[in-house]
């Protein structure tokens, strides 16, 4: 699914590390959090496959912006965190 700049997206609240060996580039602190797409960064071979020498289909990578207060109870309003997240970790925000 393509996410346009400005779209609100939710990082999947998924924990593959509880199901077995894996390599994940989506930090824990963002799982289940809602942010805004800043830009598409292109497509790259999926590192979750590369790490295990499996065929790695290219996945779209996005820069997603999160307000600090949405991530941390002591987050300062106005401050932000911007993270590269692959498309298969993003879903439209409810």
């Amino acid at each position, binding site marked *: 699914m393509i996410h346009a700049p400005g779209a609100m997206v939710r990082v999947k609240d998924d924990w593959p590390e509880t199901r077995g060996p894996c390599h994940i580039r989506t930090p824990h602190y963002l799982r289940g959090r809602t942010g805004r797409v800043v830009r598409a960064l292109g497509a*790259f071979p999926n590192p979750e496959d590369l790490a295990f020498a499996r065929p790695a289909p290219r996945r779209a990578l996005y820069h997603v912006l999160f307000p600090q207060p949405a991530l941390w109870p002591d987050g300062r309003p106005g*401050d932000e965190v911007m993270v590269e997240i692959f498309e298969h970790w993003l879903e439209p925000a409810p």
Partner: protein
Amino acid sequence: MSDLLRTDGAVLLAALRPILAAKGLASAAEIEARLLETERASPARGAAIVARAWTDPAFRARLLADGTATVESLGIPMRGLPPLGVLENTPELHHLVVCTLCSCYPRAVLGYPPLWYKSAGYRARAVRDPRGLIAEWGTVLPETTRIRVVDSTADYRWMVLPLRPQGTEGWSEAELAALVHEGDMIGVTVPRRKGPADAHA
């Protein structure tokens, strides 16, 4: 060689070299060339890029639009390396780069990362308490400046283009480059003009 000096990386490289050569993937000469190039990269290279961006608006625009191609045009080899993104600081917005997952760093333009960049303390605090963290470098931003922490988690490498210090109008690129340090291009510090005028700033 004592066991203390035999690092895992060196053992791995020694084992890989003949395999890479036998498979025709990388010759000894190519590996040497890449090692030399890696050693050549340093914060001075990044500082020169910053100074050029401060003095040449067309270069700055190209650098922000396509960091990889623009630094390649300066003779920095980027083939086979992750793409480079450059993030511009403004009076309203300050960038701080971290890699919470490991130690992703724009080595082509800044060289090896400082040791603290890889520390669990830096990585954990940068995303949660960026203002408290950079205060330990003596960096205090105006209340009106937002901090945007950039967590480098995937295929890009990010370098900060810091704000040009006031009072440096007419300075040469070399003079400006001398003001720019490693931390300024990560975002833990900001370039400052040296000299007595600082006392009145």
